[in-house]
């Protein structure tokens, strides 16, 4: 009796399971995503020439501006790549510094940029200090924290004074410049 009952109840459950599997399988093989075109990961998904990208803060004031002769991005990659990038960063609409290089890349999510070849970071003079100019062959810039650093030989100009070092880190928001390893500073009035 129990055997009968068991097979009597089991069969419908089996049937439902099989039907569900069949439905899923059919759905998978019949799905055809018209939007996804298989892109070549080594070729840019899109390219922009002579671009100026400007971003504003909540009060509508200038926040940052990126100028480049060429910008491109690869499919599915977070970084955008630039030729001759020139990144300006503002605070309450006032220019804090700008960075130029021959090439560079920028990650919009992490707000971190990397500049390469003849990189110059310029912090304009203000009431407290003369212009500061950091020159290096490569520089990492965290625009969120307003922090720049390099491991390469660098030259720092501040007014008439010059400093040379192998690597530096610069917390621009606090005017704190750390020169690493062998350093030479020449203070001139």
């Amino acid at each position, binding site marked *: 009796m129990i055997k009968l009952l068991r097979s009597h109840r089991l069969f419908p459950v089996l049937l439902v399971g099989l039907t569900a599997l069949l439905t899923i399988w059919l759905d998978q093989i019949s799905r055809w995503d018209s939007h996804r075109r298989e892109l070549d990961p080594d070729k840019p998904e899109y390219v922009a020439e002579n671009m100026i990208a400007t971003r504003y803060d909540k009060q509508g004031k200038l926040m940052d501006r990126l100028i480049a002769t060429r910008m491109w991005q690869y499919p599915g990659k977070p970084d955008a790549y630039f030729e001759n990038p020139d990144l300006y960063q503002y605070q309450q609409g006032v220019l804090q510094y700008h960075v130029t290089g021959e090439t560079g890349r920028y990650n919009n999510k992490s707000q971190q940029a990397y500049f390469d070849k003849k990189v110059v970071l310029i912090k304009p003079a203000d009431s*407290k*200090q003369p212009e*500061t100019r950091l020159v290096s062959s490569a520089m990492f810039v965290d625009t969120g924290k307003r922090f720049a650093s390099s491991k390469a030989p660098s030259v720092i100009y*501040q*007014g*008439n*004074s010059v*400093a040379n*070092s192998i690597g530096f880190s610069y917390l621009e928001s*606090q*005017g*704190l*410049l*750390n*020169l*690493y*390893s*062998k*350093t*030479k*500073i*020449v*203070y*001139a*009035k």
Partner: protein
Amino acid sequence: EQADKTKPIEITSDNGCTMEQTKGVSTCTGNVVVIQGTLRLNADKVVATQDPQGNQTLQATGRIVTFRQKLDNNSGWIEGQSSKLDYDSAKHFAVLTGNARVKRNGDLVIGNVITYDTQSEVYQVMGGGANAGKGGRTTVILQPKNTASQPAAAKPAAGAAAQ
């Protein structure tokens, strides 16, 4: 030399420097060498402060801080050493503190604090060890001047607290 204070100050160090731009203070460590004209200073750590007019004050510390500077009119060199040295290039003043010694053309001055005016080339020595308060011995050794060959050099002012 007089011209030293108009020359740029060059600071080189092995372990890098930290520059606080808003305060105009730079701290350098590791075999620090400071050169300004003929002045040469060696220390383990140097804190350089630049005022808005660009004048520099240096504070050098270390196991032993040494400095050497050429005197005007080719009258030789002055050398000094101590455990701390404060140098103000605008006021042309150096203060050596802690086991201070200054040697100039054979003259030797030893005390706890020696102040040296790089313009008038006058130095003043004070005794007083760390716990001896105002007192404390100073030593001044003056070489006999051979009046024929040597021009009259300015004598060091005896220490105010020499005992």
